[in-house]
């Protein structure tokens, strides 16, 4: 099994840490993983993306042009990465702020209203966990228990009390993700 994922959005949306938790989850179930961010000069704003690979065997290139799954959190990223999803692959996006929606018909497209849901849950910080939940619903490649372990590893101990909240958010994501029909 190899799953090649791109997660892309604004800096500050938790793109990198979502990828990190996913990768850690993979390690928890003894997989090979890689996490390769885009990086630039340190300026607030702008876009960020990370390529995450989970695999049962040695990972060759950590940099990819095509992905099994694209997790898309803003318009620029959608414009950039929609075409990079492998035929038959999955694209998950948060429709908030999106004016030009996905058009590909050879892939499976899903929406997750994570922004809205995070607002409802009154915690912007769990936005990315809701998105992660959506992904896990569609691609249950890591077990929830391993995600929780991954969270533990990637969060500093002083933030461990937030794990239940994160778990809740993931579950919310699993719950609210819905197919988007391209027409």
């Amino acid at each position, binding site marked *: 099994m190899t799953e090649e994922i791109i997660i892309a959005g604004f800096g500050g949306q938790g793109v990198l840490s979502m990828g990190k938790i996913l990768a850690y989850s993979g390690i928890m179930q003894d997989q090979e993983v890689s996490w390769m961010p885009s990086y630039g*000069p*340190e*300026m*607030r*704003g702008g876009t960020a993306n990370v390529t995450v690979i989970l695999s049962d065997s040695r990972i060759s290139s950590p940099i990819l042009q095509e992905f099994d799954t694209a997790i898309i959190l803003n318009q620029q990223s959608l414009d950039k990465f929609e075409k990079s999803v492998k035929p038959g692959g999955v694209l998950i996006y948060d429709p908030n702020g999106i004016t030009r929606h996905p058009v590909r018909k050879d892939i499976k497209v899903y929406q997750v209203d994570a922004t809205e849901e995070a607002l409802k849950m009154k915690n912007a910080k769990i936005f990315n966990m809701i998105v992660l939940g959506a992904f896990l619903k569609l691609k249950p490649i890591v077990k929830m228990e391993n995600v929780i372990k991954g969270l533990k590893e990637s969060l500093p101990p002083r933030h461990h009390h937030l794990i239940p909240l994160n778990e809740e958010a993931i579950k919310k994501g699993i719950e609210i993700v819905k197919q988007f029909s391209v027409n």
Partner: protein
Amino acid sequence: MVEVKDIIKEENLVYTKSKILTDKVFHYCPGCSHGVVHKLIAEVIEEMDIQDKTIAISPVGCSVLAYNYLAVDWQEAAHGRAPALATAVSRLMPDKYVFAYQGDGDLASIGTAEIIHACNRGENIVIIFINNGIYGMTGGQMAPTTLEGMPTSTSPYGRDVKLAGHPLKITDLIAQLPGTEYVTRQAVHTPAAVRKCKKAILKAFQNVGKKNGTQFIEVVSTCNSGWKLSPVKANEWMVENMFPVYPLGDLKG
């Protein structure tokens, strides 16, 4: 009652962007002091009508892309070396208005030798020194001007003066060099400060016309990203913490 739409008319315009500024959107973080200082330099160049005589040198630092924003001829220096470039330009084209724009890492750390010697030689240039007490561009590392106890990514527990030394008041040293004519410390956190800072920049550029030495303007600045504060809070923090160490005012000239 005057309506807003009646006020917003060409003939009532009292403040707008300098024509020296290009249309490009600053890449700076929201609220970054760099933008304000850029604007002031642009206004001075516009008012002095020296666009064709200005040669600007940008540093390596957040303002590395300054050349995208002011419509004057630019040279992009190597990290810390802007004063060396400026020296050559001013000597080879003595009638130009040459200014070097530098951050605190650029000027007071790696470029210490270049700034001291350019100022000591009294090169006929303007130095604009943006002291935000941190390395903005590379992600908020400690600068020579970082305050005691101030956390940065390379002093995560606060600057420990036993390990890293005290904040370097480079402007105080510069002021003592016989080559400098005008040395001042300004800020741009309030409208009044902005006005004063602009006057200082204007004076510096005007002095260059008289060729009496180096003009040095420190602008005590915020890096709200590096400081991990909102822009407004960053200004407050600066007033409270930076100004006592870097008091505003003219040091010379």
